[in-house]
């Protein structure tokens, strides 16, 4: 059907767009990876927190009348709100469950996806919500004759910034080092007199903050609705797995594979684009059963 030749410019542009989509996937799944890697919690509620992030972004930005400032304020506040919610969740309930089976933790976080979904419906109603990027991020500029949305460029800049921040956090700070050590051997860290529980709380909150940040960043590009949580969570899990559990760079690589196979799939075989990312996951796992990069566990 699609006989028109694929020009190099179009391909390059598709790659860039795919990469900007990768940014959102990366931010969300790196948070998931952190929680999964260090706390070993398969947090299905991660997607819900992403959704809450998007809704809060909408509310905050609207409060300031969808101005440029409003968006920036939302970008700062929304992830913090999500982090606060997750802190309450962790200190209040989750921290009592750390010695349970992984599957029970899965059940617990699943229960929260149900609760969050209905809470969001109660607070924000079920209408579509839509948020506009500030004026300086709207529209597009020409890239080799094809339009490239400014917002995508913004995302392309945000992605590496977040990755860098995470890298500094895990490699250069005390808490990051403890967290990495705890991921490998929890008893060991406990034994040298560090309060692992506090470290876990911090890691959980950071992970959820990233979910909120992803939700905030994605808000202007799509309509904010219930059901956002469903779509992202399965993709995030697959990304974390193919990248290598608990590995930040793995999350980046996995997200890139997901974003790019999706974007390029559309160009080469639009009818079956939906299948490409899943195929990629299957192939990766068949060749490297424990993910592409070194998994923590």
């Amino acid at each position, binding site marked *: 059907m699609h006989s028109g030749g694929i020009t190099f410019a179009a391909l390059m542009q598709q790659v860039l767009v795919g990469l900007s989509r990768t940014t959102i996937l990366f931010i969300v799944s790196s948070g998931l990876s952190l929680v999964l890697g260090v706390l070993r919690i*398969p947090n*299905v509620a991660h997607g819900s927190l992403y959704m809450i992030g998007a809704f809060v972004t909408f509310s905050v930005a609207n409060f300031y009348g969808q101005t440029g400032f409003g968006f920036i304020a939302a970008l700062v506040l929304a992830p913090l709100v999500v982090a606060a919610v997750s802190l309450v969740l962790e200190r209040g*309930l989750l921290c*009592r*469950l750390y010695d*349970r089976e*992984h*599957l*029970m933790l*899965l*059940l*617990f976080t*699943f*229960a*929260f*996806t*149900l*609760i969050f*979904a*209905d*809470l969001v*419906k*109660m607070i924000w109603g079920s209408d579509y919500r839509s948020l506009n990027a500030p004026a300086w991020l709207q529209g597009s500029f020409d890239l080799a004759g094809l339009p490239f949305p400014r917002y995508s460029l913004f995302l392309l800049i945000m992605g590496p910034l977040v990755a860098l921040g995470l890298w500094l956090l895990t490699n250069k700070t005390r808490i990051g080092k403890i967290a990495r050590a705890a991921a490998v051997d929890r008893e060991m860290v406990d034994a040298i007199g560090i309060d692992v529980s506090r470290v876990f709380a911090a890691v959980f909150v950071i992970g959820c903050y990233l979910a909120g940040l992803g939700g905030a960043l994605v808000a202007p590009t799509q309509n904010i609705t219930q059901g956002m949580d*469903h779509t992202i969570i*399965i993709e995030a*899990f*697959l990304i974390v*797995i193919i990248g290598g*559990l608990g590995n930040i760079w793995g999350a980046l690589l996995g997200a890139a594979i997901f974003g790019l196979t999706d974007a390029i799939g559309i160009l080469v075989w639009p009818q*079956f684009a*939906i*299948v490409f990312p*899943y*195929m990629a*996951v*299957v192939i990766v*796992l*068949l060749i490297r*059963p*424990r*993910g592409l990069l070194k998994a923590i566990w």
Partner: protein
Amino acid sequence: MKPENTGIKKTAAALGTVAGFMLLALILPRYYLYLLALILTTGLLATSLNLVLGFGGMYQFHHAVFYGTGAYCLALILTKTGLPAWLGYLAAPLAAALLGLIMGLLTVRLSALYFGMLQISLGSLVWAIVYRWYSFTGGDDGIHGIPVPDLIGTSRGAYLFVVLVTGACLAVMYRIVTSPFGMVFTGIRDNPERCRAVGINVTGHQLAGQVMAAFFAGVAGTLFVTVEGSVFPDMMFWTLSLEILIMCLLGGWFTFFGPLLGAAIIVVLRTVVGSYTEYWTLVLGVVLILLIFFLPEGVLGMIRRGGDNAAGK
């Protein structure tokens, strides 16, 4: 109590229960028969998952795909071919088992989460094919008005059929769980490495377990078609798989009847609470959290433990 004695008692109790359920067909209004049929179908599905999840320790994250395969296979045979219906009822579980074998061959060497995730990816591929192949599977509209044989086409007939088939399948699964294979399977769940060391072919057993679980999920799929007369791609979407998983955990995944109970709880909650408030998922969520805190091994797991403690004292 002598073991032979308990065996006979168990058989009698099981037959009695099945007979009791069948008698209900005479007294209950058909809505409740429908609801019971739905609970039993879902319960059979959850039990089949628990065969590998609770007894095999395998993270079977996409079990619904086998359920859907069974249902679609029967639906397609009944609507698109002139083959006799019983052939469809036979072929459907076999098709599910075959898919279980193929997916198992690819996934079984992976461990825990990786196993589950590869299964989700493969299952999603199957789902995508069903979802897009409009001319064959009806795409996302599904297939409706499936001509189920007259005898089991009425609500009462369907109910009786579901009771009999579920009863038979549960009996067979119970035998499997208590057989040497079942015991070895629990051993593999607890400690696969040790099993290898005592001479057990772990991957072989896991593969066989998956094929069996897929087979019974396929049976559950045919029951769904009998009860509802419809199939649709939702039946093999990953969210349903997660729901079944939740049923197992909720009812008690180290017990045989736990998943059945979990299925009953979720179906009933959905129907009863759903007719009072549209926020029934919120209620379900809160119930789940309470259960996690107060009944960590699931409802039945807790009941059984309570019984053990009482017996111990």
